[in-house]
């Protein structure tokens, strides 16, 4: 499903990733961990094509990303649901619309949008805040909206970047349980997190980054 071959990524005078090799198969659930600034977000960005690798090849669902035409990028992204570390909620749209937009982009009709958005908000326990604006939500509530938006369109891959940074342990555990359920339906899930609690005893693969290097793999 996802293959990194000798991938490196440099920013100006900063090396974010160095010679990374790994594969993730369809239906897998994988954790990526490492200290602050180790390259977790960069690795996810390479997958959802927000950044291009400086060296090496990445293939996603059989596509070589560096041979992809620019106009196909949106369609590839529609198979990926992303929980952005910085949320990327639209401050001028309410919660319903923020989640609905993921479906609207895919051309889903109004009626289906409504039921699916409300379902998705229910899974993150925020159905009652459907008409609020992002600013009126607590940090953790905002984070759960982002999670709802990432899964509402039932993508084939979910990338979650520090999805529980603002959630208390119980809510966080609930989110991981949710990811596991989705994973059981065959959806590939990649979670970048520094929180060891999340992958402890999950029996899932954990890829460990440090300072841009892949330093090891274990089972959580």
């Amino acid at each position, binding site marked *: 499903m996802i293959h990194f071959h000798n991938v490196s990524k440099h920013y100006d005078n900063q090396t974010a990733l160095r010679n990374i090799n790994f594969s993730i198969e369809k239906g897998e659930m994988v954790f990526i961990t490492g200290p602050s600034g180790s390259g977790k977000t960069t690795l996810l960005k390479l997958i959802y094509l*927000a950044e291009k690798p400086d060296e090496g090849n990445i293939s996603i669902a059989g596509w070589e990303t560096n041979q992809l035409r620019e*106009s196909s990028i*949106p369609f590839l*992204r529609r198979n*990926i649901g992303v929980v952005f570390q910085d949320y*990327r909620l639209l401050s001028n749209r309410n919660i319903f619309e923020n989640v609905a937009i993921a479906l*609207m*982009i895919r*051309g889903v009709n109004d009626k289906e949008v409504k039921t699916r958005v409300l379902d998705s908000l229910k899974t993150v326990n925020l159905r009652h805040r459907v008409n609020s604006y992002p600013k009126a939500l607590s940090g953790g509530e905002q984070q759960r909206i982002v999670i709802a938006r990432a899964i509402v369109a039932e993508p084939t891959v979910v990338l979650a970047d520090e999805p529980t940074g603002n959630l208390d342990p119980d809510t966080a555990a609930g989110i991981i349980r949710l990811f596991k359920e989705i994973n059981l339906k065959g959806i590939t899930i990649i979670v970048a997190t520094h929180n060891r609690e999340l992958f402890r005893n999950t029996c899932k693969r954990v890829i460990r980054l440090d300072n841009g290097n892949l330093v090891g793999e274990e089972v959580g």
Partner: protein
Amino acid sequence: MAAPYAFRFAFQSVLREKWINLLSTLTIATGLLIITFAVFSVYNIDAATKKLPEKFFMMLYLEDNLHGQGLENVINTLRKDNAVETVRYISREDALKELKGTLKDANYVLEGLGENPLPDSIELKLKKEAVSPETAKRLATDAKKIKGVNEVEYGEKFLSSIHSIKVGLKIIVLTLIIITSAGIIFVCYSTVKILFYRRTDEIETYKLLGATRGFVRAPFIIEGALIGTAGGLLSLIGIISFYYMVLLKLSLTIPLFKAILFPTNIFLLLPVTGLFLGITGATIALGRLRF
């Protein structure tokens, strides 16, 4: 299809930022109103100066007792000239009558006159487009060569000053209108552009969620179109109320205003211009979308 969402998004966006959108709309409206006033002034100045050449004529004084064949010969030769519009024969008697009319209250100066001292003459009017100092000079030289023509007279100074007023006014007014219009269009465009800038975050989010170029662009362009058209309609309302509330009332008391031409149908172009401005501004503000 993305179209219905695009319209909904655009309308929502217009409503949510209503104050700043209203400001842009008013800016566009004002801009178009000013252009319209400028065009309207040019139109009227042009119409007014177009009539000036009609007042120009040349006088040909004929030899005494030129009649029949000789007179006809002169008239026909003149008619053949491309620059000539009308040829009018004025007998010495008619000329005296005209002179008396001109002198009006002072016409007792002619009372002592025994015999009519005036010659027969021909009044030439030139074609509007031919009225120019050069043509008049050429025609005068030609006419003098015709047998039977004694002397040619025309307001040389009058003509050249009229001519320079016409050309001068046209240059001034055209310069002003070109500068003004270019300026106003730039101002409107820049307003729309400033209005849409700093939405990069919003656009980036749409793209990362998998939106196509069309989906990202459509709401912004529709919003621009709405703002532009609204501005155009407002300026149309403005110009029509100006007509009914100012011009029409003034023309009742001051006759000069009756002469002003007001081509209302042309002003229907305003909403279209607004639409065009809005769309162009938004499109250029969005720039090239890269994924």
